[in-house]
């Protein structure tokens, strides 16, 4: 916007002002405050916003200019930290990677917390069960004898390529909280934990793949996956999550027969 505010006040429609990028968008946000009510309610916010901006910018506008009590998580705001996964128009996405023009701004944009985890306030959920499942698969390099890192652990480009897809995970929980099995039974490890197990199971430098496979052979492990592909659709990093889960299943079967 190059138009100075002074000119805007007296001479109403400037030639360049007619094609203003700003449009009116309704944000329909799921609000929950346990100190006020046990019920979550929808609240509408009307915003003047450039459709090329992101949903996160809209939430910032609300929080900074309209209602400071709106609570949500975000850290880097550039799709790397994985803090601002939320259910936007019924689909799990990162608010910082979703442009308003891409999600039909003519209709109200619904913003809800991700499902299957306890809502603490507004869009903030308790991520502890999610990280518990992540810790359970031991997401770190394990070596048997040569624990001392005395030299570099070499790996061929092909060996690195084997698990490249699952290294992209940012632990935003968009996949796990889109999984219908996880919604109903939080004991299921969930796609994100399996993806991060996959990252080490298929790493040629790691030596605890068998242990991790044994953990995922559990009643609540990979066999509860129903291949609904919700996780693959939800992943903001484009990881083929369901494929990774299937590869773990195949590894479990082929290593036992």
């Amino acid at each position, binding site marked *: 916007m190059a138009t100075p505010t002074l000119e805007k006040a007296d001479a109403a429609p400037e030639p360049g002002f007619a094609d203003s990028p700003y449009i009116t968008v309704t944000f329909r946000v799921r609000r929950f405050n346990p100190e006020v009510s046990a019920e979550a309610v929808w609240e509408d916010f009307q915003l003047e916003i450039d459709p090329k901006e992101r949903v996160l910018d809209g939430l910032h506008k609300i929080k900074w200019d309209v209602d400071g*009590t709106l609570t949500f998580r975000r850290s880097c705001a550039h799709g790397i930290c994985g803090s601002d996964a939320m259910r936007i128009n019924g689909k799990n996405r990162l608010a910082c990677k979703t442009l308003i023009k891409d999600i039909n701004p003519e209709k109200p944009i619904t913003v809800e917390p991700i499902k*299957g985890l306890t809502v603490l306030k507004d869009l903030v959920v308790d991520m502890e069960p999610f990280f518990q499942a992540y810790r359970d698969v031991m997401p770190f390099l394990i070596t048997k004898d040569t624990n001392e890192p005395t030299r570099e652990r070499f790996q061929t480009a092909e060996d690195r390529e084997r698990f490249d897809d699952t290294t992209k995970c940012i632990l935003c929980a968009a996949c796990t909280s889109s999984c219908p099995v996880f919604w109903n039974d939080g004991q299921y490890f969930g796609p994100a934990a399996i993806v991060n197990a996959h990252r080490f199971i298929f790493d040629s430098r790691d030596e605890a793949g068998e242990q991790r496979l044994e953990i995922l052979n559990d009643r609540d492990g990979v*066999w509860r996956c129903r291949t609904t592909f919700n996780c693959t659709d939800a992943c903001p990093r484009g990881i083929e999550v369901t494929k990774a889960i299937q590869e773990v299943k195949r590894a479990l079967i082929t290593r036992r027969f």
Partner: protein
Amino acid sequence: MATTETTASGIGPVEGGSVHNVDNPAPLIEAPRKRTKKSPKSTRGNFEMYGWLFMRLSGIVLVVLVLGHLLIQLVLDGGVSKIGFAFVAGRWASPFWQVWDLLMLWLAMLHGANGLRTVINDYAERANTRLWLKGLLYTATVFTILLGTLVIFTFDPNIR
């Protein structure tokens, strides 16, 4: 909640002063998916893997068995109108059809029961509901398998 000194945001007139304090603490939200002592212990067996594998393999065999069964019973040679005591007696005189029907009975029942078991695991939320539904399922499965097996092995064409 709507006392005079609180606003819609739950913040009192004093800046930063919540309606909750040490004597009146905010409600504790129990995490429903927390891993507690009551949550199921992890299993170290291959049961779920064999179950998963069985579903795939029995499914493939059942496609042949069931489609063949339907073709013989309903389409070929006069269709459903030909089926009678004599027709069944005639087929079960051959060990081939005995084995076919026995295999179909066992595979279909176990395949269906395992499928329903996973459905119950996925959809029944309370432990008690799960227990009763699975109890009912296993009872019905065992009863049907035993009864069907008994009939196939003890079938007497001269029953009258």
